[in-house]
């Protein structure tokens, strides 16, 4: 084995922290002095010669070779000098490199922050296509950052001033969001959870809590205070690239506030409550009887698609109109119901002698209408008379559905009321003759407490001509009742206006109107006004009259199919149309038929909508609460949906069915505020998930004075 060779490494001591090293160290031993602090070679001599007598003698150390052969110069200087180019130490070079990197970085930052591309460079990522297509166009590109960030267009000086001037941070990002989105979301309530007053929201989600104030402090088991405002950017995170969907919200975001944690739709989600129908249908239609009885009788096939079509959006199955669905069977009966027209103004039979004996003078009255008390005032006349205070009082005395036949000739109070009504009727006829249609407008406006639009007046008068009124005043109510020039046969009169219009009946001394057909504008206008008047001063009278107008036997048979709902303010509303896509506005739960009926097994409506053969559907239309009803289809259950809606299949995220901004619009927010009565814990349509038990049918809520609508 060969022995390792050991060579002397020298006795010099390197100091790594020194900035400079002797250049001679590359080749051999460095000079004893080494470079100066600034890296200059001192060019030191190998020794300092000693003067011995008159000669100079070398004084080099034996460690560095001892006395040299050349010796000192005659002037006494050493002949050997250590000259080198000092080398910078590795540490010093590293220090210069680090300083260089630092300066380069600062320079680059200054250039970038002061350049035109500043905003491009500091943007944390590309915008989503939703915003990019609006903000990244040429005219907006320069200012696009400022669209969402107050600092976007500010200078560097203003950035620095943010420390001392908080006003520079305004407007906030959410305010800037709402600059563009204010049409969809009411600015005032935009940052509230679900854009609803937290009190109302919590009362809806926790109806069992007795104290509303407790609701606001009962978020201990939630991850987040449900009453705290939420910025738009909390959920809608931008700068995540063009493909990022701004509306993609994770289930965790929902469960920050929602107390119940749902790990899986199939196992954890509460059972549905009255889904999909949360109220009775607006058109009273018994699917079961039509399927089992009426259609077979007419040898017709009962197919869903005959009456229901998918709307253009694909989300909604709309109900087709009357002409294409019901008219075939029902139109003849409707036409028959108004074959004699509808009495609008009528002169009833009066016992003028009894009235005179009681001291009531009604003035001129047709002889052909004189006899025993008989006949009823038409609804239209009664409604117009309600605008006359005295007449309204008398109508209330006799009852809104009074008939002159019921008047006791010996009852002075009834005779007085009858007299008042007759005089008011004559006054109404006189006003109609002198002023014409504006009389109707004036009385209706007084009754409804609002101005009528020209379109409404057109519908309510149906082109009533002064000539028709003149027959009443100049022929029937004249001093000398002459023969009428009008038609003498009521039937003939009705036939002559078979397409709809006005005619007089001299036998019954009645001004009649023949509707033009289903959905006649005159008839629907007056029924709508009766419904509207049900909330006013003469609400009870109007409501009774509406009940008469909506009887199945009434002319037009409107009440046979069109349901009447009582709204939260007590007013009645006639549903002329089946459910429309816009009826409920935005909802927390959204469903679209389009992607579902693509599935072969779901294309048959009966797969989900199974008829309940035992349901007494029509019974629910005898009262005006649309939410107290019996559905004619079995309710859908969670398991119906959970067969497909699993994480690995159709998905089961919260936002697949539920919408956060359901109450974004002011209109819908008020609808919710009215639907939810938090302090009595009754809700309409927005039930807690926990209330799985069937709800009993509710009685009419007593009408309460309206509170001012303040948020």
């Amino acid at each position, binding site marked *: 084995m*060969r*022995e*390792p*060779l*050991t*060579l002397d*490494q*020298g006795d010099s001591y*390197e100091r*790594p922290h020194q900035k400079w*090293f002797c250049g001679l*160290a*590359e*080749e*051999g*031993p460095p000079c004893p002095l080494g470079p100066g602090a600034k890296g200059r070679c001192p060019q030191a001599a190998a020794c300092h010669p000693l003067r011995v007598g008159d000669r100079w003698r070398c004084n080099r150390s034996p460690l560095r070779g001892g006395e040299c052969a050349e010796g000192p110069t005659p002037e006494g200087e050493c002949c050997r000098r250590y000259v080198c180019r000092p080398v910078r*130490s*590795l540490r010093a070079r*590293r220090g210069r*490199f*680090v300083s260089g*990197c*630092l300066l*380069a*970085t*600062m320079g680059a*930052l200054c250039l970038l922050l002061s350049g035109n591309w500043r905003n491009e*460079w*500091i*943007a*944390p*990522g*590309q915008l989503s296509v939703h915003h990019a297509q609006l903000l990244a166009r040429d005219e907006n590109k320069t200012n696009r*950052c400022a669209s969402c*960030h*107050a*600092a976007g267009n500010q200078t560097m000086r203003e*950035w620095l001033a*943010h420390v001392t001037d908080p006003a520079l*941070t*305004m*407007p*906030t*990002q*959410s305010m800037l969001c709402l600059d563009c989105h204010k049409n969809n979301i009411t600015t005032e309530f935009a*940052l509230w959870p679900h854009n609803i007053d937290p009190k109302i929201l919590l009362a809806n989600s926790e109806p069992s809590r007795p104290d509303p104030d407790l609701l606001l402090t009962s978020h201990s088991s939630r*991850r*987040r205070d449900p009453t705290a*405002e*939420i*910025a*738009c*950017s*909390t959920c809608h995170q931008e*700068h*995540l690239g063009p493909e990022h969907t701004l509306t993609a919200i994770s289930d*965790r975001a929902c*469960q*920050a*506030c929602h107390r119940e944690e749902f790990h899986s739709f199939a196992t954890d989600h509460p059972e549905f409550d009255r889904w999909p129908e949360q109220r009775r249908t607006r058109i009273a239609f018994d699917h079961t009887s039509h399927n089992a009885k009426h259609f077979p009788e007419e040898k017709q096939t009962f197919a869903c698609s005959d009456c229901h079509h998918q709307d253009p959006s694909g989300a909604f199955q709309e109900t087709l109109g009357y002409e294409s669905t019901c008219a075939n069977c029902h139109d003849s009966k409707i036409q028959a119901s108004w074959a004699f027209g509808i009495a609008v103004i009528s002169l009833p039979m009066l016992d003028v002698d009894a009235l005179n004996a009681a001291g009531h003078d009604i003035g001129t009255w047709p002889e052909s209408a004189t006899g025993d008390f008989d006949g009823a005032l038409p609804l239209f006349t009664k409604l117009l008379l309600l605008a006359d205070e005295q007449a309204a009082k008398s109508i209330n005395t006799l009852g809104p559905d009074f008939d002159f036949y019921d008047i006791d000739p010996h009852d002075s109070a009834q005779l007085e009321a009858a007299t008042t009504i007759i005089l008011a009727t004559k006054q109404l006829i006189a006003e109609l003759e002198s002023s014409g249609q504006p009389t109707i407008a004036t009385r209706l406006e007084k009754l409804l407490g609002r101005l009528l639009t020209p379109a409404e007046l057109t519908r309510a008068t149906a082109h009533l001509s002064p000539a028709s009124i003149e027959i009443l005043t100049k022929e029937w109510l004249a001093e000398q009742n002459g023969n009428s020039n009008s038609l003498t046969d009521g039937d003939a009169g009705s036939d002559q206006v078979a397409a709809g219009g006005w005619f007089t009946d001299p036998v019954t001394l009645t001004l009649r109107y023949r509707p033009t057909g289903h959905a006649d504008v005159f008839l629907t206008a007056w029924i709508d006004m009766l419904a509207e008047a049900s909330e006013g001063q003469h609400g009870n009278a109007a409501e009774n009259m509406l009940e008469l107008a909506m009887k199945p036997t009434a002319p037009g048979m409107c009440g046979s199919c069109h349901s009447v709902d009582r709204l939260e303010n007590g007013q009645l509303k006639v549903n002329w149309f089946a459910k429309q896509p816009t009826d409920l506005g935005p909802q927390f739960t959204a469903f679209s038929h389009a992607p579902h009926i693509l599935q072969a097994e779901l294309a048959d409506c009966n797969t989900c909508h199974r008829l309940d053969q035992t349901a007494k559907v029509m019974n629910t239309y005898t009262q005006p609460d649309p939410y107290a009803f019996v559905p004619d289809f079995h309710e859908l259950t969670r398991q119906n949906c959970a067969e497909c809606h699993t994480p690995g299949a159709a998905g089961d995220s919260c936002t697949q069915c539920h919408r956060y901004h359901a109450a974004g619009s002011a209109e819908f927010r008020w609808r919710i505020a009215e639907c939810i009565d938090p302090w009595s814990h009754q809700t309409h349509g927005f039930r807690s998930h926990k209330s799985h038990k069937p709800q009993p049918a509710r009685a009419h809520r007593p009408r309460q004075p309206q509170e001012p609508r303040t948020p």
Partner: protein
Amino acid sequence: MKSFASRRLRNSVLTSFAALAVVGYAWWSTSRLERPAFATGYLLLTCIVFLALYNTRKKLPMIAWTTSAGWLQAHIYVGIFSAAVFATHIAWRIPRGALETSLAALYLVTFASGLLGLYWTRTIPPKLARVSEEFLYERIPALRSQVQLRAQQTVLETVRATGSETLGNFYAQRLQGYLEKPRGLIYWLRPNSKVRKRLLAELTEVTRYLSEPECKASETLFALIRRRDDLDFHAAMQWRLKVWLFVHIGLTYPLVIVACLHGWLAHLFYGGAL
């Protein structure tokens, strides 16, 4: 005194718990619809500044709160902890903007160079210790010259004494270039003993043609070839130990500056979300 293993175990557990706490906080905060990015951002900036202080501690004696070894331990574990904070801060997503991508790249390269440096400082010293002798990096050039000079003297003396040119020719043709020139880039990046083995084998082959005095001189050449190779190995390895710091420290201060800028911009453009 605690052993190195137990100390490492303790520090690793503490670091892991701290990292888990940060990840847990971010999850909890996100589930409350809050933004953990500001909290994790400030924590990350604090970590980076603390890590940068390790280089500054010698210049600022007032922050020398512990020994250099203590600083190093803290530097290592805080550095690893900062990676967890960084991942949490960027929400485990790849940044998209130019500034944020640059900042993330700065952090990642700095962190990676630190990890590499940690690996080298743990693995290279034992390798160097297995070499015959210890050499100071700054002295290696001089020692190389010394070896080259010694080899030349040995060969010349032998040629003069024996009159044979066999060893001289071998030196001139095979050894002189090896001893005079520095090693190539490939050797610096991946040191190996191929040249050493080849030269020693060739010298062994030549030995059978040498006289006894030349054989003695060849023994010296054997030793000098090994020494030169040891010096080259030391130089390459010690260069690694020093050069990674150029990257690591060189990027540290730009990282601090860009991180501060990023934080400032985040506050400016946050703009009070509500």
